[in-house]
């Protein structure tokens, strides 16, 4: 049993944490790629900025400034600092539901990125800065995992995290493999950058060795069963968390979101790379993004903003 408002905050806490980590990684990989004065660097920058919806930003302001804005711009609601501020705001609203250990990790990170010296630190060593932010987010997840009860609060947080992750990875793949067929990415270094953006390089190498092929990347990031950032893994987590939550709901209640999530999970479980190639990756990736949006709505209708009339005692 938990308050509907609290579930909402925990769900968004999960989403913002995941978003902050993803954006930090995009910026970090992008800045690294630009160190090489080659076309691959330009491609990597284009991938990262397209994935956040601003493909022309680097030509307008330069890639360092673009990365800085992505990380530290407080006026942009989608920057790392804004995501962390929103995550913390949500955590503060449910301070009684998360453990002190978990809260302290997030609060510490928030104080670090909002420090007046943050911009200077970022300018002096952006790689170190972003590395530390990502490491702190991992500490947050670790603290949450090892100190919080894996009950309802935890499930809502995980739900937000995996929904956000499925959407972010789909978006990244859409940019590379679906939207502009004319601009197929084939460059080795750009593809490595893509794997790094999905935090997938080392696990990928273990499966496919150093043969970096677009086809394998797509297969790995969409269908791999064990890699925690693949779309298949994320959707199966979404489904698992939703079924666990639905079991707690009152009997006789027909909960919507776990049905949508189950269907999406099955879709990814039984599809394969041949099918994906014959139909084009775009269709499946768009389905994933749309179904995630539907699950989001269904979560609201079932757990958070349900009509009161249906729940009043007879």
């Amino acid at each position: 049993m938990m308050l509907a408002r609290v579930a909402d905050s925990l769900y968004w806490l999960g989403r913002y944490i995941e978003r902050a980590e993803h954006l930090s990684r995009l910026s970090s990989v992008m800045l690294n790629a630009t160190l090489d004065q080659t076309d691959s660097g330009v491609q990597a920058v284009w991938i990262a900025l397209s994935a956040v919806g601003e493909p022309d930003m680097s030509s307008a302001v330069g890639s360092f400034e673009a990365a800085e804005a992505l990380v530290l711009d407080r006026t942009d609601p989608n920057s790392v600092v804004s995501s962390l501020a929103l995550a913390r705001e949500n955590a503060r609203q449910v301070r009684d539901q998360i453990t002190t250990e978990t809260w302290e990790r997030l609060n510490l990170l928030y104080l670090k990125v909002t420090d007046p010296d943050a911009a200077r630190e970022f300018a002096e060593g952006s790689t170190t800065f972003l590395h530390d932010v990502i490491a702190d987010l991992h500490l947050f997840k670790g603290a949450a995992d090892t100190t919080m009860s894996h009950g309802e609060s935890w499930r809502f947080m995980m739900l937000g995290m995996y929904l956000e992750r499925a959407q972010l990875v789909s978006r990244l793949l859409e940019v590379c493999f679906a939207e502009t067929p004319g601009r197929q990415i084939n460059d080795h270094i750009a593809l490595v950058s893509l794997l790094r953006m999905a935090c997938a390089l080392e696990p990928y190498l273990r499966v496919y060795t150093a043969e970096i092929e677009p086809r394998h990347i797509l297969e790995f990031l969409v269908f791999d069963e064990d890699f925690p950032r693949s779309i298949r893994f994320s959707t199966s987590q979404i489904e698992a968390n939703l079924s666990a939550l639905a079991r707690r709901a009152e009997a006789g209640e027909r909960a919507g979101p776990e049905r949508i999530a189950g269907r999406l999970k099955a879709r990814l479980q039984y599809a394969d790379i041949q099918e994906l190639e014959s139909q084009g990756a775009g269709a499946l990736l768009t389905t994933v993004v749309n179904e995630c949006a539907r699950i989001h709505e269904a979560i609201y209708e079932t757990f958070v903003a349900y009509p009161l009339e249906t729940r009043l005692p007879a």
Partner: protein
Amino acid sequence: MDEGVAAKNQDITETPTLPMTEAAYLPGVAYDEMFAADGGVRSHYDPLHMRMSTLGGEELAGRQRTLEKSFLLQGITFTVYGAGNSTERIIPTDLFPRILPANEWARIESGLTQRLKALNLFLADIYGEQQILMDGVVPRELVLGAPSYRREMQHLFVPHKSYANVCGSDLIRCQDGEFAVLEDNLRVPSGVSYMLANRDAAKRTFPGTYRAAGVRPVERYPDLLLATLKSMSPEWRPNPQVVVLTPGVYNSAYYEHAYLARLMGVPLVEGRDLVVHDNMVYMRTTTGIRRVDVIYRRVDDDFIDPLTFRRDSSLGAAGLFNAYRAGNVVICNAPGTGVADDKAVYAFVPEIIKYYLGEDAILPNIETFLCREPAQLNHVLANLDKLVVKAVGASGGYGMLVGPHATQKEREDFAVAIKADPENYIAQPTIQLSTAPCLVDGRIEPRHVDLRPFILSGEKTIVTPGALTRVALKRGSLVVNSSQGGGSKDTWVLAEDGPAQPHGQPNGSSRP
């Protein structure tokens, strides 16, 4: 600080010096918690004094920084909103605990228990038969005319006659070393989370001294609070659902609301989480709505129910008060308790204690002049430079004139305001609050302090053996409110006193 006295103290051959400070510690005219008037260290402060003398200034500053960092990390902060951006500040916290010997505490404990018992009986009476008004002990218009008197509460059943379940009284120690009550807080007193956080910090800062001193624990407060709240629920609800009602995350005491909810293990709700249906209160959960039995509300009377009190409030729940009237939910503290901590009613508390309990007040009041009485008004106007004048309806250090520290112009302006609305003002002599050692800019200096213990009252009355000591951080300032630049420090209540106790009070009371 009084210059003359400071100079005199230096003449004493054995001036107490603390090696790590550049200047000697110079108590003023006020009673000092650590040093007796002859310059000797009070025996219950001995261990701390010894520890303070062995730590260097750099080391103390380091510990102070660690302390502040841990408060920031835990999020024990309030937000200061400025132009464009907002910054988080911690409530200033002082390193050195304030120590109270067991015999003094025993007297405070019995005095507070007596006082809260009498005030709860008073509330039950004025919302019931009004016998005390019939007997003319307290002026009728003073009670019934007070804005904090809620007619809606008349003849409403309150379990155990416990109207004020959580009370935080402000005590001060006067120049003669005796404690007196400055104010009773029966509405939504706050600060208890600082008491607990300060204790946590003090244990880390002075572990050895803490262990050696034999300090009574305060850590049971959350479970005693929960037991008190549960005791307010009717017997036929065997496992009552308790919730904490907060105005929300932007309230300055939000940290405390979340803290108490977390430590009691109960939901922290906002008004929008509550639904009233058929005079029952429910909260919206992920699995439907769930009945609520006891609401520990941290929202003022005015805002708890737009249908009964302020209509523009969105902090409460519509219909909550009717559910309370119907006996389906308990609101703690009860609405309307504010009338008993009214600054004018305060003057009558000793008579109220005598009237209901037939006892003399164990803890005295501060002498109070009511401007509503013409004779007392004239006295106040003639002595504005010596008195502290307070508006009856105001709190938090606002609407207040500290005569000796005010300018001629301020006093004249205040005189006009008093004459225009004498019923709204009371005056008290300027009390030199006692001082305690504080670390200020790397030096140990005396600062004025008060004492806010917390009393719980449900089926039983319990005084937590500890308190929030509030500190006026500005040199010489007598205003300790956090809204006026006050800080706080931990308060150690000793379990037993050592054999040599030169400043003893008779230990004649027992714990309830």
